[in-house]
Structure formats: C-alpha cells, structure tokens
C-alpha cells in the first residue's frame, strides 16, 4: 500500500510540474483560453489525487474495522458498539481481575483456615516436650506419667489428623496458582490485539498524512504538540511500573523510596 501511495504521489507531482510549465508557456504567449483550460486540468488532477487518497483512507479504516470485528449499530446516535475485539479485550481484562481476585481470596481462605491447626500443634508439641524432659530427668510422679501417656496418644491422633488437613490445604493452594497460567494466556492475547491496533493506526496515519499534504492541511507537528499537556500528565496515577529498571523517573524499590524521602528531610 505504501509503495502504491508513493507512486501516486510522484505521478501527481510530475503532472503538476508539467502543467505548471505549460501554463507559464501559454500565459507568456497570451494564449488565455488554453491557459484557463490548463488551470482547469490542474484543479482536476489535484481533486482526483485527493479523492484517491481519501478513498484509500476510507478503505484503510474499513479494513481496520473489519479486522477488529467491530459489530456496531451505526444508525443510533452515538453509534452503539455491540461487539468488537476491543470490547472483547476489555472483557478479557475484566476476567483477569476476577480470576486473580478469586485466586487470592481462595489462597487466603485456605491459609486462614489451617493456620490455627499449625499453631495449636506447635503449642501442644512445646508443652509435651517440657513434660517429656521432666520424665527424662525422673521428676515425674506415677500419676503424672499416666496423664502424659494419655496425652501423648491424643497428640499423635491430633498430629495425624492435623497434618492431613494441612497437606490437603497446601496442595489446594498450589493448585490455585493455576490462575497465573489462565490469566497469562488472556493477557498475551490482549497484548497481541494492542500491537495490531497500533500497526493499523500507523498505516492510517500514513495515509492521512498524505491527504493532509496535498490539501495543505498539514501543520508543523511541533506547533501541535503543546508541552503543557504532557507536563500536566506527570502526576496521573500509572499503577504498577512494568519496566521500573529502565526508567530514570521511577524508583525500583522501597530502598529508593526511603532514600528519596530522607533527602526531603523525612
């Protein structure tokens, strides 16, 4: 598509130069009728070129819409998007939030449920060990020994039951981490879509740029970019930094936060 456009552009420019040269010749020889015909041809050629470029832009937009499977009701105002890959991507991202939330909740539920078991077994073990040492030091009466004997049996039962529950929960917690796989796949798809959208946008921008050039709408890009707009965005919340290491305006950990704050007198 790009080459095709450049050829058209070159063709249009050479047509323009030819016409201009002829026009000067006609005017110099006072041939006004033919000169006005030339001007007419010139305008015609420019219009043709604009129509072609606009046509390409429209086709490009249409392709982009088809590629992203946008199913929209254009009659309603504003047009209502029933379905599209972007909408689908939003749903996928929502899914990631739901999945990760569920996984975090289930994991914490499991831990909260079994933490008391582990703690009680630990407390009981500590207590029995002290009793056991008393026995070894022969500081125990017959009655106390009989109690210890029974307590030992109970503890072994508790231990058996408790560790079974603990192992089951630990296993469940590991299984629960499967959300990473699921959400990772979904995120990869969304990343693919974002990349596609970007390349389609670049294509459209290229065509639009050519339309602007022939119609004289193009502005100096520097004047369009207002530095204040970029400045204002500085304190917009960004969420987790994915490439903290490669950015100098971002801290890469708590230590750097502490250094920065202490430099401010904290």
């Amino acid at each position: 598509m790009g080459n095709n456009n450049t050829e058209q552009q070159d063709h249009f420019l050479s047509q323009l130069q030819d016409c201009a040269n002829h026009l000067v010749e006609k005017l110099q020889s006072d041939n006004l009728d033919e000169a006005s015909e030339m001007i007419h041809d010139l305008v015609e050629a420019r219009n043709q070129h604009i129509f072609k470029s606009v046509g390409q832009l429209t086709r490009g937009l249409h392709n982009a819409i088809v590629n992203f499977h946008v199913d929209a009701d254009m009659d309603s105002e504003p047009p209502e998007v029933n379905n599209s890959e972007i909408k689908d991507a939003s749903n996928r991202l929502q899914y990631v939030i739901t999945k990760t939330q569920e996984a975090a909740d289930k994991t914490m539920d499991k831990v909260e449920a079994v933490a008391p078991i582990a703690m009680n077994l630990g407390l009981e073990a500590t207590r029995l060990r002290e009793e056991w040492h008393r026995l070894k030091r022969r500081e125990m009466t017959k009655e106390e020994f009989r109690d210890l004997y029974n307590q030992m049996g109970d503890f072994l039962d508790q231990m058996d039951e408790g560790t079974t529950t603990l192992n089951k929960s630990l296993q469940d917690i590991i299984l629960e981490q499967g959300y990473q796989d699921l959400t990772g796949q979904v995120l990869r798809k969304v990343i693919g879509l974002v990349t596609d959208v970007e390349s389609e946008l670049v294509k459209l921008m290229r065509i639009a740029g050519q339309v602007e050039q022939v119609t004289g709408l193009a502005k100096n890009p520097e004047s369009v970019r207002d530095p204040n707009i970029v400045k204002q965005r500085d304190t917009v919340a960004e969420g987790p930094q994915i490439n903290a290491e490669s950015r100098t305006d971002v801290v890469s950990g708590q230590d750097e936060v502490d250094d920065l704050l202490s430099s401010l007198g904290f």
Partner: protein
Amino acid sequence: MKILIVDDFSTMRRIIKNLLRDLGFTNTQEADDGSTALPMLRSGDFDFLVTDWNMPGMTGIDLLKEVRADAKLAGLPVLMVTAEAKRDQIVEAAQAGVNGYVVKPFTAQVLKEKIDKIFERVGS
C-alpha cells in the same frame, strides 16, 4: 488504635488487614476509595490511615490533601501503600504531608518498619 484501610482492590485491603492483625492492630475498617473514606474519617475516631494512590473516584493523593486541609483531621498519621513509583509522585506525596510511603509489592517487614517509625515520631 483504630485504623482505616483504603484500597479499591479488596485483595489488597485483606492483605493489609491480615498484616496489621499480625502486628497486633485488630480494630480496622475498610473503604474502597477516597470519597467513601473521607466521610468515615470525619465521623469516626480513626487514629491512623493507610491508603492506596490509584483509585477510581477520589485518589489517595487527593484524600491526603483533603485530610490535611481538614482542621479536625490535619494531624492524622497517613501511610501511603501504592504501586505508584514515580519520583515526582513520591515528592508530591511528601509535600502533601504523607507520613510514610510504601511501594507495592511490599513485605510484612517493610510495612511494620514504616508503621513503627510513624508512631515513634507521632509519639515523640
């Protein structure tokens, strides 16, 4: 010690709540953004505020500014626990009067240190 935990993700509120409980702080309440938190702070006798930055509705930094501008709440210790890691943001939070800044993901140890430090200062 009554603490308000403000974060739009319930998972994070729960994690912070659990960590605080381990540190012996059991009296906690939750809010999911600044605009829900502010009336709670104004009507309740909270001793400490733990807030995220990036939330829909009112953000944590705006909540902090509101708290500092409120005569009754101005002295409330505020700890920011957030994924926002830009230097400009940390400076902005410091200038707005934050008492501590913890970046996510964080450890229980870091949270404890910052809380201890805040109460050490407030107490002295």
